[in-house]
């Protein structure tokens, strides 16, 4: 095969057996890879009603056909499993260098099954895989573990692993690769921990074969050239300041979530946004594999109580560990970010859970004696302390480790959990980003922004600027964007480059550049409509998994704060999110019933009937 390596590695931790399987070319064609290939295996092999932390659940790591190639941003992979946080499917995307190394070790995917009796890690050396004992690594943080595994295997190996949070089954534990890149969302790290798998280390020197190398190189240059042209006109904000520059757009639109989404403007925003980070703590910009943007931030807080070094914060972290908890101290939020990376925690859910606790405390539903200390908005010291406690499941952190919805429910006020399907919202208030509101509610994994990131258009002006507060125009756009995001995640590309330079520059976002690159790499001779249908197929396959787990329209919801309480101030003052009205049209366009379930006709059309 070209583009694909043609091999799947299946690892059974219960009996220690490791098998290689051939990738079915028709499955590869129909689901592409990454997110698509993963949901194919999840539907086929995992009971949607299984215990997410039990032996029946599987943990699937998938690269795409463009992962490990010279394609711009061809360095992504997906981690897919049933989420212990939400009970839904989850798939979390990450970059760095691990995904390309995995591919170059000879595999398109790793399927991890069962549960080891004692801690192990998986070592893959250019196609040869073995399980190695990890008892001596259990309890170590992600950086210590990365150092130790590379010392034991190959210093050039790349790792994806868990820290103490994953071991202790924190329900929003992440899998960290290349030390500081995260497959962060919805507890993929807890599933790894439940399986007693400390991590995966890979070394790969194989080449991803191209069907038409000359054409691939030509297309690669063509699409990279689009970014080069833009960079000629002036500094590229994502490269210069990282994703935290996005605060400019959210703050000025009044959708920068502040104090658990009680308002959309944070008075101290200038202290924590991208330019402040560049001035105070930036060491250098860091690209993922084959990325011409380099939005990653290597940073250092040189002195003071929050002294440290590492990577981040990114925009979502500036929201979750900053404005959402009212913290305007960039050093404190950066330190909490470092701790999340080292302990293996999703920064979004960590911040959102602390914000929920702070609101419960503010409203008198949670007391100082419950927590062990006061918990006022803006308390950077408490933020850092609670982050550490959560990762270690110590003190009040043991309760926070269950996530915001369980926390708020425990104290009698689930309405203070800012979640959809149990997953915490990203950093955009849906009252001023109505299209994203619809996406939060309908995204298969819960309130992720990365399943159809409408703020590109509603706030950032990419590919064109539209009004975030209008809602009647959004359902058809959300359907198209969700489909193309599924395809980007399947191909092994990063959204940041793909949506702007590999799709046509209109709201239609037709994936013309992805088509060119995929065809040159794989020789599959896809048609544009076929690729668009694949995006639709992946989304519907994920929906089918949800349906079987008991999800329907009732879970396509948002907290009442967004649908019933008008934004109190700022540019979006007086606005609520018109979710119900949008949902009706959304289901019609999707070919789903008004209960939110794919019809037989729709499943037949996508080739999913009988799966």
């Amino acid at each position, binding site marked *: 095969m070209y583009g694909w390596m043609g091999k799947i590695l299946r690892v059974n931790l219960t009996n220690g057996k490791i098998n290689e399987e051939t990738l079915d070319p028709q499955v590869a064609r129909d689901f592409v890879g990454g997110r698509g290939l993963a949901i194919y295996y999840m539907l086929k092999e995992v009971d949607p009603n299984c215990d997410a932390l039990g032996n029946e659940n599987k943990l699937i790591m998938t690269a795409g056909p463009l992962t490990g190639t010279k394609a711009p941003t061809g360095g992504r992979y997906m981690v897919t499993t049933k989420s212990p946080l939400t009970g839904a499917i989850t798939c979390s995307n990450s970059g760095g260098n691990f995904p390309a190394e995995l591919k170059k070790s000879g595999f398109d995917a790793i399927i991890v099954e069962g549960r080891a009796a004692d801690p192990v890690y998986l070592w893959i050396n250019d196609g040869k895989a073995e399980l190695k004992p990890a008892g001596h690594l259990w309890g170590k943080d992600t950086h210590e573990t990365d150092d130790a595994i590379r010392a034991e295997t190959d210093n050039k190996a790349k790792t994806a692993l868990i820290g103490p949070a994953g071991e202790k089954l924190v329900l929003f534990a992440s899998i960290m690769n290349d030390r500081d890149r995260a497959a962060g969302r919805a507890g993929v790290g807890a599933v790894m921990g439940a399986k007693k798998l400390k991590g995966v280390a890979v070394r790969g020197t194989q080449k991803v074969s191209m069907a038409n190398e000359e054409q691939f190189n030509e297309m690669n240059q063509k699409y990279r050239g689009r970014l080069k042209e833009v960079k000629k006109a*002036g*500094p590229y904000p994502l490269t210069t300041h990282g994703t935290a*520059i996005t605060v*400019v757009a959210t703050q000025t639109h009044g959708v920068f979530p502040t104090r658990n989404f009680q308002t959309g403007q944070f008075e101290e925003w200038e202290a924590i946004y991208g330019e402040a980070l560049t001035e105070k703590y930036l060491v250098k910009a860091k690209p993922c594999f084959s990325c011409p943007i380099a939005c990653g931030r290597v940073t250092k807080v040189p002195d003071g109580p929050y002294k440290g070094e590492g990577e981040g914060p990114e925009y979502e972290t500036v929201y979750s560990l900053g404005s959402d908890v009212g913290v305007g101290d960039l050093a404190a939020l950066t330190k909490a970010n470092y701790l999340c990376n080292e302990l293996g925690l999703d920064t979004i859910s960590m911040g959102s859970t602390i914000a929920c606790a702070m609101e419960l405390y503010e409203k008198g539903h949670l007391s100082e004696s419950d927590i062990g200390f006061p918990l006022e908005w803006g308390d950077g010291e408490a933020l850092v302390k609670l982050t550490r406690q959560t990762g270690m499941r110590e003190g009040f952190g043991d309760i926070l480790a269950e996530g915001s919805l369980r926390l708020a429910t425990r104290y009698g006020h689930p309405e203070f959990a800012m979640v959809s399907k149990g997953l915490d919202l990203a950093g955009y208030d849906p009252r001023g980003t109505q299209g994203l509101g619809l996406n939060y509610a309908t995204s298969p994994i819960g309130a992720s922004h990365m399943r159809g990131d409408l703020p590109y258009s509603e*706030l950032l002006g990419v590919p064109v600027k539209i009004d975030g507060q209008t809602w009647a125009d959004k359902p058809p756009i959300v359907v198209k964007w969700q489909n193309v995001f599924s395809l980007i995640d399947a191909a092994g590309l990063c959204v940041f480059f793909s949506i702007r330079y590999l799709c046509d520059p209109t709201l239609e976002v037709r994936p013309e550049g992805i088509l060119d690159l995929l065809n040159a790499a794989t020789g599959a001779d896809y048609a544009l409509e076929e690729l668009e249908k694949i995006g639709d197929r992946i989304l519907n396959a994920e929906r089918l998994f949800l349906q079987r787990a008991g999800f329907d329209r009732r879970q396509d919801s948002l907290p009442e704060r967004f649908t019933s309480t008008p934004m109190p101030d700022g540019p*979006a003052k007086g606005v609520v999110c018109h979710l119900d009205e949008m949902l009706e049209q959304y289901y019609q366009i999707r070919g789903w019933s008004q209960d939110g379930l794919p019809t037989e006709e729709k499943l037949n059309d996508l080739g999913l009937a009988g799966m």
Partner: protein
Amino acid sequence: MKVHVDLYVNLKKYAPANDSSFEIQLATGATVKTVLEVLKIPASEKAIVLVNGRNADESNLLKEKDTITLYSPISGG
């Protein structure tokens, strides 16, 4: 009339003085286009324009005390 202007990211360099948050005096009937011309911001900057935090285009008529926000397109968050 007086309007308030905030310039961000790559557009800060078009501020008439050091401060990228400032007021300017415009004649009645001025539009967003007038502001772009006064500040000499070329079309090639593809500036995102908000008036009082809402989407606006060049033809948008301005009134006393409006806030005009201008920043460069950003592709990721």
